[in-house]
């Protein structure tokens, strides 16, 4: 590809190591930088470089196929390998891009929400979180996944707790997240321990090979799989294990909510894909059972019940948080059906939902920034007072519902098609039903915003007060991105199908 000619060779060769090392190092440096714009500028530059690197690696991957970087020159399976393949490359791009978008938005948002002496540590924690997420996606070593999972989780607890300057409930939300997140990560590491007992290796490709030789392995491998599913289920907010999520999303600083909603659960979902289809294989009876009964079951329950809960929320961010749990259900349904088309659709929804939900939370953040809006009833007249913000919110909200020519439509139609193709007609019905539920909770806000006049405070009608440009640009970029995916869906759909083919070995 022509674009690749502009990328230096060393970046393509050492890009994988660069992706996780740069934010790690810069997190340490950023924490001691002056609190004002310097810390922001350094974070901005780092995330911009990460985005370019991730894009370059993804393009390179599309051209030459899977690349394995040997960390420190130690060959796998003994050394740690960093793997860029069709599955990890799009998620890397997604995380880097969303961190970049969030950082632009964070410039005004942190001024409003974070105490001045905490801003540099805020950006340091943010970079640590980015490093952890990128690391857990790119690494080919199972224990390394745990380490990066914890790097990202621990920095996330700190980021969520920083919302305490705005709302004290952020503290108890962060505490709950810490307890449940740590239990999840510990379950995961127990699972890795059992897998190591079974296979004697930590390299995921090597594990996959040995497990295949053992024909799925003994009871130890089954127990390992159970622990890994529960651990990741906690991290990705699988339906009954989602209780940490609404609080963490609702009370953390607004840039953190947008970043978490679009990346943290998605990286955990990526790991779920990696473990169920790559390390383990759906051809083992116990994996097939878990896919069929646990992932599909919990996915469907999550879609219905979390959507219903979203309808009855009075806090707009809690509402979108429950909607996130419901959307995770779509992805789990796609993964659980376990055909190439359905896994591709689940993966596609992972990417699309990250763009949509990230943008929606950015718009909500801008509304808080101008008017202190958190409750749904405060949406009255926002169509007049914040037309541009509300415009982006509308586009992204319609995309969440699944209106044609938006990203949400593309992934839902693909998922419904895949379910129908596998003969799961009842699942198509559930997808329709939950889309209607999404229409109810998003439509409720849109009705308030466009068909009610702005409220009157102290006898004065609230006047138009648009969000600053640094907030509008990121949210419109995501809104237009979701339309772009809806109209020109070939690139993203192609990438998701390639990822599914890699996972199911049907390429």
């Amino acid at each position: 590809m022509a674009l690749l000619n502009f990328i230096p060779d060393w970046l393509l060769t050492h890009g994988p190591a660069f992706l996780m090392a740069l934010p790690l190092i810069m997190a340490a440096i950023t924490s001691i930088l002056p609190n004002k714009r310097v810390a922001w500028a350094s974070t901005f530059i780092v995330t911009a470089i990460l985005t370019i690197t991730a894009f370059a690696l993804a393009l390179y991957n599309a051209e030459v196929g899977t690349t394995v970087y040997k960390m420190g020159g130690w060959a796998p399976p003994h050394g740690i390998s960093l793997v860029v393949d069709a599955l990890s490359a799009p998620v890397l791009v997604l995380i880097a891009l969303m961190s970049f978008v969030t950082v632009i938005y964070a410039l005004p948002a942190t001024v409003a929400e974070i105490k001045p002496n905490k801003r540099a540590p805020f950006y340091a924690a943010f970079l640590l979180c980015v490093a952890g997420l990128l690391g857990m996606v790119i690494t080919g070593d199972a224990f390394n996944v745990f380490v990066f999972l914890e790097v990202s989780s621990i920095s996330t607890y700190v980021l969520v707790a920083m919302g305490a300057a705005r709302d004290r409930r952020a503290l108890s939300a962060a505490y709950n997240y810490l307890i449940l997140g740590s239990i999840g990560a510990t379950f995961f590491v127990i699972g890795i321990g059992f897998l190591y007992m079974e296979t004697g290796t930590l390299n995921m490709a090597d594990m996959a090979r040995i497990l295949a030789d053992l024909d799925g392995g003994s009871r130890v491998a089954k127990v390992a799989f159970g622990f890994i599913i529960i651990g990741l289920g906690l991290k990705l907010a699988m339906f009954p294990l989602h209780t940490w999520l609404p609080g963490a999303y609702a009370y953390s600083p607004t840039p953190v909510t947008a970043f978490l909603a679009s990346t943290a659960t998605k990286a955990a979902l990526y790991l779920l894909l990696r473990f169920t289809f790559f390390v383990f294989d759906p051809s083992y009876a116990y994996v097939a059972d878990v896919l069929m009964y646990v992932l599909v079951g919990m996915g469907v329950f999550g879609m219905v019940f979390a959507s219903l809960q979203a309808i009855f929320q009075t806090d707009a961010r809690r509402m979108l948080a429950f909607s996130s749990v419901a959307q995770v259900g779509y992805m789990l349904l796609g993964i659980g059906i376990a055909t190439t088309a359905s896994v591709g659709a689940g993966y596609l929804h992972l990417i699309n939902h990250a763009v949509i939900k990230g943008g929606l939370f950015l718009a909500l953040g801008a509304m808080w920034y101008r008017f202190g809006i958190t409750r749904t009833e405060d949406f009255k007249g926002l169509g007049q007072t914040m037309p541009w913000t509300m415009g982006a919110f509308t586009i992204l909200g319609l995309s969440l519902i699944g209106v044609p020519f938006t990203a949400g439509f593309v992934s839902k139609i693909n998922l419904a098609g895949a379910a129908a193709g596998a003969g799961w007609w009842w699942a198509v019905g559930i997808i329709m039903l939950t889309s209607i539920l999404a229409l109810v909770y998003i439509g409720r806000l849109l009705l308030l915003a466009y068909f009610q006049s702005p409220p009157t405070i102290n006898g004065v009608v609230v006047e138009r007060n648009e969000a600053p440009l640094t907030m509008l640009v990121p949210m419109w970029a995501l809104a237009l991105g979701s339309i772009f995916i809806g109209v020109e869906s070939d690139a993203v759909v192609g990438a998701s199908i390639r990822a599914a083919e890699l996972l199911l070995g049907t390429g």
Partner: protein
Amino acid sequence: MSELFSQYNYVIVIILMMTGLYTVFASRNLIKKLAGLSVFQTSVFLLYITIGKVSGGQPPILVEGGASYGTDVDGHALLEGTIQVAAGGGSYILPGPGSDVLYSNPLPHVLILTAIVVGVATLSIGLALTVRIREVYHTIEEDEIEEKDFIYNLEGTAD
């Protein structure tokens, strides 16, 4: 029953794990929950170290020039072949296949060292959060915090 005694370390792991997990879910005091979490994580450390132990094995220490420094409990070599170590220009040999030393697997120890650091970090963040919660809510009992939040919710958050 004798199987339970011969595998006593697994029994300890399971007891610790369940004790920790139960404490996390059952107690409503923030500090007690963190203590339970710590016990839960500690059980995993023990599990990993159990994985690494080879019965009769010695500590995995590099042997210079490949000279042996001991034998296993039966007094003879059980393994064949050598592992060259990259460090020291190949002058060190890991007691492994070929040396007459049976050694414990060092890898789980290294792994769990990382996990211990992670556990300490989690615990310290948890304690710091508890301090902040105590400052803001003047309590560390979850029931009272929820009660205060409930009242706070009713009053609304918009200023």
